[in-house]
């Protein structure tokens, strides 16, 4: 592999440029007119403009991206996360144009992209799933039948949804009858597919996901879990590895389930299996993400494995150079997603010019960010400024280090989530490792003071 096209932007595009550099691979950045001054565009070996500022005019234009790949004669395309990363049609177009899509096959993406099919696929190989319907539910009556057999409360989910979207809770039969139709309409509007299924709703679970790697030679291993329970409206704010709730025995069982799920999906590359874990330490398959995830750095710092490099090596046909037994969890790592949002004003986005920027550093601090002094955050994309990761021998050290690093970090000119994240990691419940997915709602209701 000599040249890779990076079909993404912002911090993940920069991350991919760095990995390619270390592997001696040339990079081609494709970018929109709004990203002319972006850091990764300046650092890549080549750059091609593919359209106007809006995503549908540029980063979602598969035709222009593939055109750029052809004229620049690239060997592979790295889709990053979001945009076209889980677009099976795009993966298929790459395949038919003889360009390697760095990720799984179009088939695997399709299989795991349909939540009902995914659940069915993993259940067949013994992965625990939430009780619920066997597939799509066509009628209100069938919905109530299933719901009464698994027991309320239940969650109505869109098969084409994901990432927290397209879900409705029903606590009894009356609300189920209503929510069933609401969910179908919403799903039709949002995803173009109104099919829904039903699952038992698990109260206040922890969100624990497992990182897997699968090569072209049949090797599949897991790299441990990430606890992503600190979420607001299903958007993750803080992630950590290992999970303070998972002991080695549970890790081994969940890891095995994750590997089995990846095999059942006929997977290639880096992927993540998401589980919900209840208070009784029972775990249930939620969904599989067939891409690299935003929070991959915490796994990298805990295990020492460079996941982006692994993606590229696997795509090149290399076997994974280590075994499951070689994987060690030597550190504890925490990540804060630093977004240009104002947490004191309901997280309203805050694009604009960063007129003063000072990045934190020192022992155990990693910053994955495309920001710099003078950079203008465009209003067309997500609000992420960067990811701040700290790690240390123990969870306490990682937390203290995160507080220190957040305090050093200066981003002047836009509002950021830094004050909120400082408050969260100072919270006694978080520090005790007791946070579940109910944490953020409860935390914000307490109206904590942060400047």
């Amino acid at each position: 592999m000599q040249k890779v096209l990076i079909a993404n932007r912002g911090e993940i595009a920069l991350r991919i440029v760095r990995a390619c550099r270390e592997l001696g691979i040339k990079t081609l950045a494709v970018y929109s007119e709004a990203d002319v001054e972006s850091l990764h565009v300046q650092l890549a070996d080549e750059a091609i403009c593919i359209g106007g500022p809006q995503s549908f005019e540029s980063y979602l234009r598969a035709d222009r991206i593939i055109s750029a790949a052809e004229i620049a004669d690239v060997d592979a395309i790295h889709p990053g996360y979001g945009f076209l990363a889980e677009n099976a049609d795009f993966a298929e177009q790459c395949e038919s144009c003889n360009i390697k899509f760095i990720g799984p096959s179009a088939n695997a993406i399709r299989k795991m992209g349909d939540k009902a099919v995914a659940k069915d696929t993993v259940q067949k190989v013994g992965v625990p799933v939430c009780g619920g319907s066997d597939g799509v539910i066509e009628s209100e009556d069938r919905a109530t039948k299933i719901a009464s057999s698994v027991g309320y409360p239940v969650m109505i989910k869109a098969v084409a949804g994901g990432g927290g979207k397209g879900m409705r809770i029903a606590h009894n039969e009356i609300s189920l009858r209503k929510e069933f139709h609401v969910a179908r309409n919403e799903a039709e509007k949002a995803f173009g597919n109104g099919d829904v299924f039903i699952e038992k709703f698990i109260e206040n679970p922890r969100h624990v996901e497992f990182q897997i790697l699968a090569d072209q030679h049949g090797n599949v291993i897991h790299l441990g879990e990430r606890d992503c329970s600190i979420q607001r409206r299903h958007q993750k704010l803080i992630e950590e590895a290992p999970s303070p709730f998972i002991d080695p025995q549970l890790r081994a069982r969940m890891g095995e389930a994750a590997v089995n799920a990846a095999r059942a999906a006929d997977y290639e590359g880096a992927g993540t299996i998401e589980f919900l874990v209840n208070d009784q330490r029972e775990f249930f398959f939620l969904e599989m993400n067939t891409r690299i995830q935003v929070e991959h750095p915490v796994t990298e710092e805990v295990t020492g494995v460079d996941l982006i490099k692994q993606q590229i090596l696997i795509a090149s046909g290399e076997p994974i150079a280590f075994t499951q037994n070689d994987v060690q969890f030597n550190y504890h790592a925490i990540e804060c997603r630093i977004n240009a949002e104002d947490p004191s004003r309901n997280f309203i986005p805050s694009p604009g010019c960063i007129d003063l920027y000072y990045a934190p550093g020192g022992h155990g601090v990693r910053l994955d960010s495309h920001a710099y002094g003078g950079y203008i955050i465009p209003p067309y994309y997500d609000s992420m400024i960067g990811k701040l990761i700290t790690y240390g021998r123990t969870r306490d050290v990682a937390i203290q280090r995160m507080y220190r690093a957040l305090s050093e970090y200066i981003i002047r000119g836009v509002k950021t989530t830094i004050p909120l994240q400082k408050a969260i990691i100072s919270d006694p419940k978080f520090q005790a490792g007791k946070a579940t997915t109910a944490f953020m709602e409860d935390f914000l209701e307490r109206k904590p003071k942060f400047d």
Partner: protein
Amino acid sequence: MKKSDLSEFGVEEENFKLKIRRDTGKEAQPHIVNYAPAQTSTPATQSEPISQAAPAAQAASIPQAESDSGVYITSPMVGTFYTSSSPENPAYVKVGDTVSADSVVCIIEAMKIMNEIQAEQSGDIAELLVENGQPVEYGQRLFRLS
């Protein structure tokens, strides 16, 4: 200076200003391949140029950043520019021709499909800015009109 990678070095203090430039013997290459954005300010690596592999020769150049008042036909897509529909046929337009909004001015080929590109404005062709067979990107200037 020769020992280091620097080609230009400056120091400014209260009563003292020094600037050294090393003549590398070749024309100053843009250190940022194909593109020189107006640098509002740079990250940690201050004035030191970001070292690059040699600029790829035919990789599409980025839309020009100079602010001038010319009128241009720009590329609406990414692909390869051709002046005519095939090597045997004459070019669609040449310098001096008058075009209207729906005049076809060139072909841009993408993924084996030849797309006829229209002028979308009227005027006289004053200059052809790209070469036959050159890869072009979105927004790239193809023709200047007068």
